[in-house]
């Protein structure tokens, strides 16, 4: 009966049916189930600009190097508040058009960082534009490609009000008298990247991370001994723009080394800028607000680090001072 070696019809039919059946069980049915998930309550649909950005993201195949999934293991905690859920992808992973399917955003390689929360980590538009034009302007060791074709050089007379001028130093341009203007594709891509933030689930509602076996240092009680590392916090939060050397990037992000505001014995202005952002000087990019992202202790540690590094010499900032300024801003 099972004479596979003599009956080619039986052989091929069995192989086909067996494979089709297994495929249905392991791929088609689970895929159908995964489609059934609904978006999270706080999630917003991508607007048309962000969708356009997603298309640029796919077209340049950013998925080759960037993942968008926070795995449920502790080492991924740096990429998001909570492990990713199926619902997180409800709006972004839809079929793009007749020709192209739902993008494979989860990715399989992390040659570059995970982008699940890049909108929170790097909120500034100028930073993104500079980084896309040439990643090594802002991150010296980066191996990411440049995307100059998302930008164009225009003579100063041709630049209009609508144009988004990228604050890049003149020697990086082909014609030093020109200005660099972001094309709509670049702006859409940046809008998409800025939209990448995990939806809030409320405390203890999301899944937990599986803890690692790594020995953790037991934190002692009390704010003083929290052991917040100003340098570590600075490199995570600030150095992408202001650079590890504190020199900033000429024309884009102001230097902190030797800055009057940073060295002011009264830290109020410095702390205020960190808390609520700053966009008063046209020659530099806008500084986003960090009040909602960082605690008083963290801001104090960062400010203290800034005021005691790169030749800066100014007194320590305490969490109490930060709390006071925060209250003052809230009351305004």
């Amino acid at each position: 009966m099972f004479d596979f070696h003599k009956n080619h019809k039986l052989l091929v039919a069995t192989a086909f049916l067996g494979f089709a059946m297994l495929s249905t069980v392991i791929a088609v049915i689970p895929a159908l189930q995964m489609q059934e998930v609904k978006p999270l309550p706080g999630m917003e649909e991508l607007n048309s600009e962000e969708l356009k950005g997603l298309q640029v993201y796919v077209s340049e195949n950013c998925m080759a190097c960037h993942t968008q999934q926070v795995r449920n293991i502790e080492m991924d905690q740096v990429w998001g508040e909570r492990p990713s859920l199926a619902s997180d992808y409800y709006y972004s992973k839809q079929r793009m058009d007749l020709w192209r399917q739902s993008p494979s955003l989860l990715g399989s390689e992390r040659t570059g960082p995970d982008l699940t929360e890049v909108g929170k980590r790097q909120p500034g538009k100028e930073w993104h534009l500079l980084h896309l034009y040439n990643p090594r302007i802002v991150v010296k060791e980066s191996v990411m490609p440049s995307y100059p074709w998302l930008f164009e050089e225009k003579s100063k007379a041709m630049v209009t009000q609508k144009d988004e001028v990228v604050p890049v130093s003149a020697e990086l341009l082909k014609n030093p008298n020109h200005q660099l203007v972001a094309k709509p594709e670049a702006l859409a891509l940046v809008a998409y990247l800025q939209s990448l933030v995990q939806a809030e689930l409320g405390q203890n509602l999301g899944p937990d991370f599986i803890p690692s076996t790594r020995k953790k240092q037991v934190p002692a009680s009390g704010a003083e001994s929290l052991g917040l590392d100003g340098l570590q916090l600075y490199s995570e939060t600030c150095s992408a723009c202001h650079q590890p050397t504190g020199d900033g990037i000429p024309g884009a992000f102001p230097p902190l080394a030797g800055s009057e505001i940073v060295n002011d014995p009264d830290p109020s202005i410095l702390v205020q800028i960190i808390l609520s952002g700053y966009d008063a000087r046209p020659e530099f990019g806008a500084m986003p607000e960090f009040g909602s992202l960082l605690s008083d202790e963290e801001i104090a540690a960062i400010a203290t680090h800034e005021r005691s590094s790169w030749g800066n010499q100014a007194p320590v900032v305490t969490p109490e001072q930060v709390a006071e300024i925060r209250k003052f801003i809230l009351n305004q």
Partner: protein
Amino acid sequence: MKRTTLLLLVLGLGLSQSQAQTVPNPAIEQWWSSPGIIGTALLIALVSLVAILIIGSRLSALFQGLQKRAESRKKETLKSELVNWEEEDLDWILEKRKAAKKYQLTGTELTGKGNSDDSRGLIAKVTHDPENPLVDEKKKETLRMETPKPLRNLMIWYLGAAVFWLVFGTLVGQYVGMKFIWPEMDQISWLSFGRLRPVHTNTVFWGWASMAMVGLGYFVISRTSNTGIFSYSLGKIAWYLMNSAVVLGNFLLMSGVNNGGGEYREYIWPVALLFASGLILTFFNYYKTVAARKISEIYISNWYLLGGLIWTITLVVIGYLPSFQDGLGETVIQGYYMHQGVGMWFMTFTLGLTYYYLPTSLNKPIYSYSLGVLAFWTQMLFYTLIGTHHFVFSPLPWWLQTVAIVFSAGMFIPVVSGTTNFLMTMKGSWSAISKSYVLPFFLVGVVFYFVGSAQGSLQAFRLTNFIWHFTDFNVAHSHMTMYGIITFILWACMYAILPKVTGKEPPALGVGIHFWLAFVGLFAYMISLMTGGTLRGLSWIEGESFINSVILMQPFWVWRAIGGSMMFVSHLIFAYNFYEMAKKEKPLPHKISAPLSSVHA
């Protein structure tokens, strides 16, 4: 409910859940790895070793004593017997013994004394100074197979296209690899990393390996069915369909049209449809040929070839059907598709080719037909279920991940049966390897089949995933398999069959250089990325800043590029060797054919 799940997860991981501040006791789950336990175990092992040594020596002394006593008793009896012997008898025995000890062979016992003469022409070549004093001289292929001209041409079409895509695809790969060292090599959108990476992978998949496989398969299917191919023109049409899919797909990818970035699914559906139609025609052609076979049994190779084709067609259809691909549905399909693309197409088909070309190169039958059958069905059962191991710890359902991991371990069954089958076939012919230019490729391919597949199974485990996932280790693994297994075996098959079909040998030196450059290059590639990938994973676990892990990869990326360059150069040499094997013979002077054609006219 959530607790139990979490507990299960933790058990599955083998990780300790204890946290320092809540559980002050040492983590007992890890007792076996604590230094005290390991040290104690080592000490006990040391003592046991000494004890075993002492017992062993005592026992051997005891045995020797017993043996000695028995021997001396024998001597005593001999002595007592000798005393009773006659003097003359003793002398006669001694003389005989002396003569026997002096005897020597003259060296002409087998040849006789006449002059040697090879009247039947069995000896092809006698030389006292070989071409190369360092390596064994490679045997020339003496067997010529009468192949129908259309089959020969069809094979050369397919294999020629494959060689072209290999050179093109690896040139792109080499270029992309160099971009890790010099990210500013060019500023052209068409050549940017994101766009070229899928061009590299898709070209070597659908261009090089697929073309070579189908071309080599045509010979197997016809030969083992003892009949001609059902339709040569269908073969040609499929050739055009598949090649145009690769050309068009690459063009679109470089211009920025990407299906969605899922690996090996970057061609948009119209392009995939072209390729799939080529596959369907090929399947139809193969199937009809097997159906018309002149022997009752279907040779095991043809199981794999037909199976590989029908599975891949199903796979492409499921991979591109849109109705279950939104949200994470796409991710489920992606894991399934990218793994089965490798497993059901390249691996299955190449195994089928090996079942024919390996035994014929050794001129002996395959070791076990039944092992081949076992491997075939287990390949289908286990390989199909393991796609989700590319998404361990992802938001995909945990049960799906667990099934994938369990069956990844199950993959040992087809892998071990296949490897055993091939190695047992080679057993007893090891000396033939150094004298053949085909068998070294087979040996490397078979060894990598075991190593690469077993390593892949191990990589699917949660703990190894923890360290290696998302790092360059994956890239090393895919080259170990697609290059170490598939490409090496395809080379072996091509070197095995082309001289038999065309009657032209590749230059021995060229084959040698090709083999060693590719082999050493692959090692440099693999080792550097595996080491770098592991260090990178550990750096992430330690929670170091991400850019540190980029900086630490730099030297490994350089070594990868060096290995890649060696591989690429070997492909150029291979292309030349192929040209030598496939080039047309000089056409006969047309004077001879002129009268004939005039008669027909």
